[in-house]
């Protein structure tokens, strides 16, 4: 009786009052999404010829890709440098990346004027090798596939020995089980290749996402516009990858009512100040080199944005993580991780939107409620799917221990 009770309370339910709020946000988003496809971009968004890209690209795509970087950074640290202790963090990060990239693709599709022609990107005779966007698109598509493959062993693990098909399909239980075991064994043999491929593809498109805006030339403010954008994007992707893993892990512990892995996360967090340091040095060299540092003191809007982005996302977390005591506390870790995430989000927003000035501004861009609704709805759906998978698949180790 008591045992059953404890299982009852320790296995979290899918729906809580908070989750219902998220469901509501997702529903509103779905409605706005429907409106976009029925009425078109012009009626639903505030995009114009001066601002061809709005928050769907800046947030859903640019921030989405950056924040899903945890997948490849943890895969690298845990598998390739083979740090056993980090293995519990791999699956949650992989899951985030998988769902995150799926929604990046959906975000792109929402933004495409001719979304039904999206598959042109897959036709070799349409390819245009000079296009940075082409490289990003191909890498992202391949990487999503790799992520799904990397996730398959988790699906196998969930169902092996537990295939229970309903009704007459029951006869298939044994064959399906055997198939799963075969698949699992086969995947086990080739998984290393996919893991390395995932890291390579990530490095490629995370950096190219920065190269994307180089062609916009003078339209992007000189504090950000530099041929080194790919390097900055790559470095910040590394940093935010670790930050996301920490952030999520702490959040998951809280919402699922399990003990946070503070020590483990503190060890992972050590990478962040190193990356932020390299980023700062590279950024300083770049600003000096191009003479763009004069804009650091001109009091313009871009100047303020830059100071905000940099102190929030680089300086503050750097200080917090350099203090041992703070780094070893759940609160310090959570604060620092949140700051890095906020900083990278600001950076992507600046590069894709806020520091972008059209050659001739027809009118300033501010997203419509529908644009916000779609973006918020996508985030809500990500949260719901993440929660569902975490509660039903062996993703979070400690949760499994609780369950077992």
């Amino acid at each position, binding site marked *: 009786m008591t045992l059953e009770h404890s299982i009852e309370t320790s296995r979290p339910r899918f729906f809580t009052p908070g989750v219902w709020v998220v469901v509501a946000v997702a529903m509103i988003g779905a409605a706005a999404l429907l409106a976009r496809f*029925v*009425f*078109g*971009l*012009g*009626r639903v968004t505030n*995009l*114009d*010829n*001066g601002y*061809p*890209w709005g928050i769907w690209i800046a947030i859903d795509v640019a921030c989405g890709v950056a924040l899903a970087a945890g997948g490849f950074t943890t*895969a*690298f640290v*845990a598998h390739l*440098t*083979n740090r056993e202790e980090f293995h519990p963090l*791999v*699956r949650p990060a992989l899951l985030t990346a998988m769902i995150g990239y799926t929604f990046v693709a959906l975000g*792109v599709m929402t*933004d*495409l*004027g*001719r*979304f039904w*022609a999206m598959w042109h*990107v897959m036709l*070799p005779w*349409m*390819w*245009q*090798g*000079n296009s*940075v*966007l*082409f*490289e990003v698109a191909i890498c992202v598509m391949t990487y999503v596939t790799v992520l799904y493959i*990397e996730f398959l062993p*988790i699906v196998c*693990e969930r169902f092996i020995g537990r295939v229970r098909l309903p009704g007459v399909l029951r006869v298939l239980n044994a064959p399906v089980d055997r198939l799963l075991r075969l698949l699992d*064994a086969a995947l*086990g043999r*080739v*998984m*290393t290749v996919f893991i390395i*491929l995932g*890291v*390579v593809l990530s*490095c490629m498109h995370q950096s*190219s996402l920065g*190269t*994307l805006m180089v*062609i916009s*030339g003078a339209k992007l403010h000189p504090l950000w516009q530099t041929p080194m954008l790919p390097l900055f994007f790559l470095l910040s992707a590394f940093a935010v990858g670790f930050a996301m893993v920490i952030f999520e892990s702490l959040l998951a512990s809280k919402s699922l009512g399990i003990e946070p892995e503070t020590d483990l996360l503190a060890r992972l967090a050590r990478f962040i100040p190193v990356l932020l340091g390299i980023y700062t040095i590279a950024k300083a060299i770049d600003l000096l080199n191009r003479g763009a540092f004069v804009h650091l003191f001109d009091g313009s809007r871009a100047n303020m944005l830059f100071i905000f982005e940099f102190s929030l996302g680089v300086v503050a977390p750097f200080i917090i993580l350099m203090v041992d005591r703070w780094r070893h506390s759940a609160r310090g870790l959570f604060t620092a991780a949140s700051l890095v995430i906020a900083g990278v989000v600001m950076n992507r927003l600046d590069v894709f939107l806020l520091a972008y000035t*059209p*050659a*001739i501004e*027809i009118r300033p861009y501010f997203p419509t409620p529908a644009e916000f609704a779609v973006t918020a709805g996508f985030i809500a759906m990500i949260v719901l799917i993440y929660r569902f998978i975490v509660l039903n698949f062996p993703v979070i*180790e400690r949760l499994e*221990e609780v369950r077992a």
Partner: protein
Amino acid sequence: MFAFPANIPSRSAREALSRRDFVKISGVCAAGLATAGAARASEKRALDPDRRGVLVDLTVCVGCRRCEWACNNANDLPNGDLSDCDDQSIFKSRRRPTSVHLTVVNRMAGSDGSKPIFVKTQCMHCEHPACVSACLVGAMRKTADGPVIYDASRCIGCRYCMVACPYQFAAYEYENALTPQVKKCQLCQSRTSRGELPACVAMCPVEALTYGRRDELLKLAHERIDCNPDRYVNHVYGEHEGGGTSWLYLADRPFTELGFPALGPDSPAELTETIQHGIFKGFAAPVMLFGLLGAIGKLSHASTAHTHAEHTEKVTP
């Protein structure tokens, strides 16, 4: 209880990269090389020496806006009466080409109160266009004889070409929900291929526009400057801007005062393509990264092989 051997479930796989893996890797690389090669083959930009262009002499333009009318007429865009062109109130605001006006004429007052001058604008048909370099499916194409042509049947509507265009001369049909197109001047390719003049050039009553070989237009432009040094600034806009353009401009005052962006002699596409092909040349960097990661994996797995064995025994009874 779950063993959580992470994503490499079997021990054989943990023995990191075997020779077999490297065979696979080289397969991937070969595919990559093939792709890169194909991409480079398509890069070659061969422009005809006799490619066409248009010279706009802004000192001649009277701002009658007949070219706007002719353009809409030739491109089947909504159009008013020819007499509507005489409406001067339209000059109060500065306009840009839109999806229904591929060319617009603005009246620009000089900064020092000098007499206004009229400026016709449309896609410049760059020699090395950013929009063409940006488009991932090749929907924008620079033809060898000059025009930069848009092919809606390839376009996916990402609008990256618009982000790339330094002049903001590409416009989008945002109101169209299903088949929106990028709209810009096509240099009347359908007319010129029949041997006719571009509609706007044919319409211009004062011959402010001259259609012809770009090299000859450049010569003509410099002749005009040389013969009338008081009439013109010594600058043919489009000769070098952003790598050069098919549309060339003459004016009586600095072009920056007329809303023309001050662009360097290199196309914005040049830098991006250099970065892109520098990083991905022959796929060398990604392949090297792949190899490096494989090596890191192999080394670190070897050094911890012992710990591994223990671990595996512990978790899988």
